[in-house]
């Protein structure tokens, strides 16, 4: 589904990602872990299409298409969704308005009729239930005055409505209490299917207790230094990231 080859990314002339390779197949859940500043969020932003991140080398192929050629909205229409680490507040734009516009825009791209108001309302109500969100959050302005937890839930709620093929979660678990974390995890697990893939970027192993990944990758200084199964997450939790760096250094020296 997604293949990243030798990706180099700079922001303001500083190289953040320095040759990253990653393959994600449909149905898989990949977790990317790593210390602060290792390039995790940069990877998410590049996948979503943020213009300030400059790809200097490498390529990203999504479902056979050159992702880097696509505008952010085209990527969304192709089936990519990023849950923002810091969801943006948009005063004056109702949550429900944003979602209906987004969903209908994606449907139009795919040659589908726009969803009628009633149909959309029914869909939204169902998904709100899953996320345990209060009805009034729909009418409120996007993320405005939401608590940290509400913002993150809102991201997953949007994901539920838009049903992407590839969902990238950028530290969605950060700052959540355990109850909110479970709701977020349930929201993700409810969408897991053989046709859909997830890239879960996290700082903590905790989330992976609830969303069990197929693969765990360790990102350090812009490169994936180690990949493994879910056990790797526990090892990182116990031992930190230092040993991975050490191992990689030895491998280079040998």
């Amino acid at each position, binding site marked *: 589904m997604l293949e990243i080859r030798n990706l180099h990314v700079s922001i303001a002339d500083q190289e953040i990602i320095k040759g990253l390779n990653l393959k994600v197949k449909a149905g898989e859940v990949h977790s990317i872990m790593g210390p602060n500043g290792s390039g995790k969020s940069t990877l998410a932003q590049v996948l979503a299409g*943020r213009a300030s991140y400059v790809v200097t080398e490498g390529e990203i192929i999504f479902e056979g298409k050159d992702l880097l050629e696509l505008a952010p*909205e085209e990527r969304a229409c192709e089936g990519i969704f990023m849950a923002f680490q810091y969801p*943006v507040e948009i005063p004056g*734009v109702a949550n429900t308005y944003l979602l209906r*516009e*987004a969903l209908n*825009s994606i449907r139009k791209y795919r040659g589908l009729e726009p969803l009628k108001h009633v149909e959309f309302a029914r869909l939204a109500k169902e998904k709100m239930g899953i996320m345990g969100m209060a009805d009034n959050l729909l009418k409120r302005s996007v993320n405005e005055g939401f608590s940290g937890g509400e913002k993150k839930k809102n991201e997953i709620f949007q994901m539920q409505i838009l049903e992407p093929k590839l969902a990238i979660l950028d530290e969605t678990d950060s700052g959540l209490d355990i109850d909110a974390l479970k709701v977020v995890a349930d929201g993700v697990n409810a969408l897991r299917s053989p046709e859909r893939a997830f890239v879960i970027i996290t700082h903590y192993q905790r989330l992976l207790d609830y969303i069990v990944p197929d693969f765990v990758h360790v990102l350090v200084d812009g490169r994936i230094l180690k990949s493994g199964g879910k056990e790797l997450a526990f090892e990182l939790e116990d031992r930190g990231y230092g040993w991975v760096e050490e191992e990689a250094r030895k491998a280079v020296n040998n």
Partner: protein
Amino acid sequence: MGISFSNEDDGYSKGFEEFRKEAPGNGIPWMESLRGEGIRKFTELGFPTPENEDWRFTNVAPIARTTFTIEKNGHKQVSPEALNRFIFPKLRTIRLVFIDGTYSLGLSDLSDVPEGVKVLSLASALDSEEGLVKKYLSKYADFSEEAFTALNTAFMQDGGFVYIPRGTRLREPVHLLYITGKSDRATITNPRNLIVVEDNCEAEVVEHYVSIDEGVYFSNVVTELVVGENSSVGHYMIECESMKAFNVSTLRVEQGRSSNIRSHSVLLGGALVRNNVHPVIAGEGCDSLINGLFMSTGRQHMDNYMKVEHASPHCDSRQFYNGVLDGRSRGVFHGRIIVHKDAQKTDAKQTNRNLLLSDNAQIDTKPQLEIYADDVKCTHGATIGQMDENAIFYLRSRGIDEDTAREILLGAFTSGTLESIQVDEIRNYCEMLVAEWFARRKGGTELDNDPR
């Protein structure tokens, strides 16, 4: 036909000598002396220059150097179809229409004026309601330092006279519609509105300035709005004039005890626009909402001058002004809040947010607090910025294309000030005007006029 004059060789005084002979109220001694004081003051003050702190950001030289004509009996034909564009859909109103400053009986609609309420043209009110007019006219709009108000006082032709007696809930809004027509000369009109709302009343009054031609003309407006105790009044100023027009408007509000006013200004037209809103909160326990939306493009210049005077204790005032500036336009927000010595427990808040859509647009925003009481709460804030790129990216990442994302954000910004308009039909009409503005912008109609 008409009287033409310019600012040279004492032209305004000479023009006045000719004008006064046939001016409304001619033969009424107090009116004649009021007009006389007006022209005397105007001659003494002259047009303000940027050295005057209140006019620092707005140069009225283009007005001062234009030769204007007062149209005489200039009854131009405005077809009912043309009128339709300026009427609020699905809303019954009491309507007074003025064409080139002269009252049009044919286009006005007074069929819904309830008994006891008086809605008529000021010129006729000087005949039939002289006592009432005398009691209120020019008692609030002080012109000792205001050249444009002095000018209006001298040259006032006609306007809306609205008198709402005690205990009246006026169901239908009063719509004062000023249409300026086609002319090959630059015309001047001096509309004067007097709105008196007694105690325990509810009313909505709309001032609406439009043109049916892209000509040069000058509307110099003064409105006095007197609000009695415990009354609630909504006032709307909708400015959609020719992109070559000059408009200087002054709304002077006097608020009685426990009254509440909602003032909404929507400025979209005109080459050079100055909108003065000056409420004096004279009674205790009042609420004042002073809202505005101004949208400029091309070389338009829009100056919003607020002077909110708290003269009594326990009053709240709220000002929310949003500006959208495109092209090479220039905007000014001058928000003065004066809290007099006795106005303890004043709670005043002022917010001015500006969105610059072009690198060449410019805004000067100037909050000014003058507080002479010691137990008050006054806050102000102003922001100037481009559109939030983070928000645009967020919307795009959800599948919404960039143009639509920008439209959504702009719409949210403009609706933010319109949503407090309580009359749905008026709000919808304003939303429609804003939508048309966006559509013109999208269509690439750069309105490049240069009044300077």
